[in-house]
């Protein structure tokens, strides 16, 4: 193939101080990040935080107010969208209604003067499991099929970077899971850099090599999914990616490899390696599944820390049961107890203690 995708060596995608303002609103605010070549990068964030705007600037459909977009050593900030080796799977699919599925997929190849296209298109259609759909119109396809056409239409060009804007948002859970596996397989197979925007945190965690959590136009944290999940950088991330119990407290410095924290009159400690602040107002965080529920403070295992309270709610979630524990000072902790069959249900209204291993806690600066 002689497309432009192959002419220039691919490289990392870098966004440098990228900013896009709409009037007074900074949809994307001084955003810098690097996406490694061939990696699967997930951009996660609440609605309206600037994900689509970021993708549009990478694709060239939106002009940055300031900042640069670089691909390898090449500055592509000023490049028109049709000259960028970047393709997009749009949230709305944006399939051409007047063209057949085959022609939709062949569109990019034809515009670049690549001929013949039959082999490539047919191969791509079978990759997304749409063999024999070539002559249909987009209107004659189900939502999931349209989504796969949109994917094939972008992928067939073998771009250096593929942008996916919530491409699975409209699909039912089963199809979404299947497409996730499919996407991941395709990504590994073709080795294209994927930048994937999603609302679905589970999707981001399972598929991506790197996850970035975005908030109000900025990246709050990026890293490997497990790293972000186990040690979030801010309260926003701690609650956006999974749930967290956060206790407000005061850190009083390091003592013997641990940061000592006083919260609501009790003393807790967190290993230095899991603390983002050592002094001043902090938030002590523990994931609900890292908490264990015991009947009373005497039953807390050696080395664990705990808070006591009253169980106010128990909801059965299938794989686990979620308990809500109201502490003496009014905070509410969420505790997941796996339904492994070995634990006895804790009745609502009884007092209990939630305990955890300090190595599973994390400490955030309260200002974040």
């Amino acid at each position: 193939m002689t497309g432009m995708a192959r002419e220039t060596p691919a490289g990392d995608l870098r966004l440098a101080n990228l900013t896009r303002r709409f009037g007074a609103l900074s949809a994307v605010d001084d955003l810098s990040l690097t996406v490694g070549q061939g990696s699967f990068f997930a951009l996660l964030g609440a609605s309206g935080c600037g994900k689509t705007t970021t993708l549009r600037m990478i694709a060239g459909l939106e002009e940055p107010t300031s900042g640069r977009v670089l691909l390898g050593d090449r500055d592509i900030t000023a490049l028109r969208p049709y000259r960028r080796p970047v393709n997009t799977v749009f949230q709305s699919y944006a399939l051409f209604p007047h063209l057949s599925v085959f022609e939709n997929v062949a569109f990019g190849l034809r515009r670049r003067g690549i001929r013949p296209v039959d082999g490539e298109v047919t191969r791509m259609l079978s990759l997304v499991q749409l063999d024999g759909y070539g002559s249909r119109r987009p209107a004659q396809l189900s939502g999931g099929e349209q989504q796969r056409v949109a994917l094939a239409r972008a992928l067939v060009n073998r771009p250096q970077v593929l942008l996916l804007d919530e491409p699975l948002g409209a699909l039912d859970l089963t199809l979404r899971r299947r497409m996730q596996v499919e996407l991941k397989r395709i990504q590994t197979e073709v080795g294209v850099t994927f930048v994937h925007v999603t609302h679905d945190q589970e999707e981001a965690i399972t598929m991506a090599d790197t996850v970035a959590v975005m908030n109000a136009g900025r990246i709050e944290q990026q890293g490997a999914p497990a790293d972000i999940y186990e040690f979030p950088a801010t309260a926003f991330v701690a609650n956006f990616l999974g749930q967290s119990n956060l206790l407000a407290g005061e850190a009083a410095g390091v003592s013997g490899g641990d940061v000592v924290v006083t919260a609501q009159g009790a003393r807790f400690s967190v290993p230095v390696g899991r603390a983002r602040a050592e002094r001043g107002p902090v938030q002590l965080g523990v994931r609900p599944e890292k908490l264990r529920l015991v009947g009373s403070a005497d039953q807390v295992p050696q080395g664990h820390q705990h808070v006591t309270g009253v169980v106010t709610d128990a909801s059965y979630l299938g794989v686990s049961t979620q308990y809500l524990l109201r502490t003496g000072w009014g905070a509410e902790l969420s505790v997941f107890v796996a339904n492994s069959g070995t634990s006895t249900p804790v009745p609502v209204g009884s007092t209990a203690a939630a305990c955890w291993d300090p190595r599973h806690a994390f400490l955030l600066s309260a200002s974040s």
Partner: protein
Amino acid sequence: MTRLARHRLLPYLLLLPGTAWLLLFFGVPLAQLAAASLYDPTGSLSTGYAMTWALGNYPDVVQAYWPQLSRSFGYAGLALALALLLGYPLAYAIARKAGRWKNLLLVCVVAPMFTSFLVRTLAWKTILSDSGALVGLLRDVHLLAPDGRLLATPFAVVLGLTYNFLPFLVLPLYASLERLDHRLLEAASDLYASPVQAFRRVTLPLSRPGLVAGTLLFFIPASGDYVNAELLGTPNEYMIGNVIDSAFLVRLDYPQGAALSFLLMAVILAVVFGCLRRAGTEEVW
């Protein structure tokens, strides 16, 4: 009567007034016209016409009025080409670039329709007249010879046709361009289509329904028109409409007028079906 029967009958009942109206005021005159086109051409209104199934009327009128026939379609075609050149960018700009001026501009397109067709054409007669400012200016800058004229030329007739029927082309075009999803153009540009290619591969095909409708709405009245040739041209620019007009109202040659009317209708129908067939095979959704 059962409910079901009533439901079956309802559509026909609703159709009844329209059908009756059409039969009475279109079907009957049309049949009368068809009959008249086959009358013995030697008859006259005063002596009466004899029905002789004179099919020869058709080749006769083609032979006699070939110049006017071909001029009709030639002028209408030229005017259509001009109108497309003017109208497509206009419709495009109103639909996609005008923003909040959209409605105002649409009103401007339709505004001339508020005055009578005749008055508008007469206004052009004044504008193009030999003593008018336009001709004076063109003569001064030597774009027109000192004795050159605009009025009473094919140019004036084609201009008049273009002007008078332009809104019929612009409105349907506007409607289909307005409906065009701009995200499709972004997708095209994302898929390596330059602006020109995006226009040719996405905008143009998706505006084809409006293009076909506008072309028909323009071409049908333009090719049958006689007012523009009458007011802005001379007998040298007369179109088939003028011949039919005079056949019925001046020369009182009914068989000839009727045969010409039918001929015009046949050609237009052929053009319409040709257009729609083509649009159909290119599958406008």
